[in-house]
């Protein structure tokens, strides 16, 4: 286990590292508004998110659903709120790194933090703002006995290297675009491809569905309607799976499986960073939203304190206070004049409205 908050003198490859004042983990509404509040006090941020788009749960879970408790917006959808926040934070020029997850966080000898993503991108930063909401969006793991022993060897939730599937008997489970796309992409290189879905209706793009149906008609892809009930194999090598169809139990000889059952939220690597947690939430001081580690802040749904409410509007308040504290930490001894956007010419200049 890498509990990594102790000072380290591990070599840092400065050439490739991004040096910055602030890294925000999570591009949900609270992470986005953190860009705004930090921007007002001249702190530039890099924002990292595991999803392929900004907005967090608002765009991933409920882009079309109305939200009724954002002050001054009687009704706004998750997507519209995200779009409006992106417009609002535009003047502050944050840099976004999507489809990446911060996997490690280490405090360096000079007091800054070294963060590394799963794509080996390295940040050296003075402050870290964790705005990770319900945690990192992670592919759902079907609750099949022993599945974890096959993960990374026979069971995959994404494709890192196509050749891992070459000349293999591949089972793809699911009915959306991911399942269809990989059925189409792996069919030419795999020994066999079986697509398994619980019903003979697919959510994916109509033309992908048509292409899949054509391959099935040509005998190039096997389509089964049913669900996986058991995995068989040993030492991480899948040999076959049991599936339940409408009126039969079948065994399919496959040595690769890709389940596509959507995403769920998991705390993920944050748990290993040595920050004090309370039931998978990060404890913070409500005057600064600082965690148990100086320089690391937690805002939005991921934090906890007496009276905490998981509301977007609470997160907006939290980032305002956090930005003041972060400014103090980054600029020791420098006085920060509290100002209003309505009247301050310096703030208006930063916002690009003057």
């Amino acid at each position, binding site marked *: 286990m890498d509990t990594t908050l102790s000072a380290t003198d591990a070599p840092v490859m400065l050439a490739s590292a991004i040096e910055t004042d602030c890294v925000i983990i999570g591009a949900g509404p609270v992470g986005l508004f953190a860009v705004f509040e930090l921007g007002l006090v001249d702190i530039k941020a890099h924002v990292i998110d595991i999803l392929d788009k900004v907005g967090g*749960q608002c765009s991933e*879970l*409920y882009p079309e*659903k109305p939200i009724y408790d954002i002050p001054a917006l009687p009704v706004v959808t998750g997507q519209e709120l995200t779009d409006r926040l992106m417009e609002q934070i535009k003047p502050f020029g944050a840099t976004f790194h999507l489809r990446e997850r911060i996997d490690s966080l280490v405090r360096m000898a000079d007091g800054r933090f070294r963060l590394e993503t799963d794509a080996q991108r390295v940040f050296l930063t003075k402050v870290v703002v964790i705005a990770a909401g*319900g945690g990192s969006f992670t592919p*759902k*793991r*079907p*609750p099949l006995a022993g599945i974890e022993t096959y993960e990374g060897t026979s069971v995959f939730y994404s494709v890192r290297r196509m050749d891992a599937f070459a000349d293999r008997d591949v089972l793809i489970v*699911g*009915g*959306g675009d991911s399942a269809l796309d990989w059925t189409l992409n792996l069919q030419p290189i795999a020994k066999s491809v079986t697509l398994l*879905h*619980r*019903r003979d*209706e697919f*959510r994916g793009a109509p033309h992908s569905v048509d292409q899949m149906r054509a391959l099935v008609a040509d005998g190039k892809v096997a389509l089964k309607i049913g*669900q996986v009930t058991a995995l068989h194999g040993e030492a991480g090598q899948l040999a076959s799976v049991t599936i339940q169809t409408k009126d039969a139990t079948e065994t399919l000889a496959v040595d690769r499986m890709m389940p596509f*059952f*959507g995403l*769920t*939220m998991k705390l993920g690597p944050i748990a290993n960073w040595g920050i004090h947690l309370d039931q998978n939430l990060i404890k913070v001081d409500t005057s600064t939203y600082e965690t148990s580690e100086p320089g690391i802040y937690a805002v939005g749904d991921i934090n906890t304190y007496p009276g905490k409410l998981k509301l977007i509007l609470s997160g907006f308040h939290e980032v305002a206070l956090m930005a003041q504290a972060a400014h103090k930490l980054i600029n020791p001894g420098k006085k920060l004049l509290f100002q209003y956007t309505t009247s301050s010419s310096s703030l208006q200049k930063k916002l690009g409205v003057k």
Partner: protein
Amino acid sequence: MAKITFIQPDGSQQVVEAAPGMTVMESARLNRIAGIEAECGGACACATCHVYVDAAWAETAGKAAAIEEDMLDFAFDVRPESRLSCQIKVTAALDGLVLRVPGKQF
């Protein structure tokens, strides 16, 4: 009020009083029914409030709408009687409803 019975995989039962207008998922969460996780909070976006409707109640509870059927693709061990409890509105007609909680939510 409508009485709703939740039957757990081990056979134990909980009966809750649900107010018409709320969803079955909300009444389950309010009464801390084990196995109804409702990760997305009722947006029909996660399939973690999956239940099996007792055969006697299938017709009254109704069928899953298209968006709910799509989301049931993300549930485990889906059966013809599967529903997402956030999509079942409590009505007086559902007084006595019996639901089974699946062995596993995703």
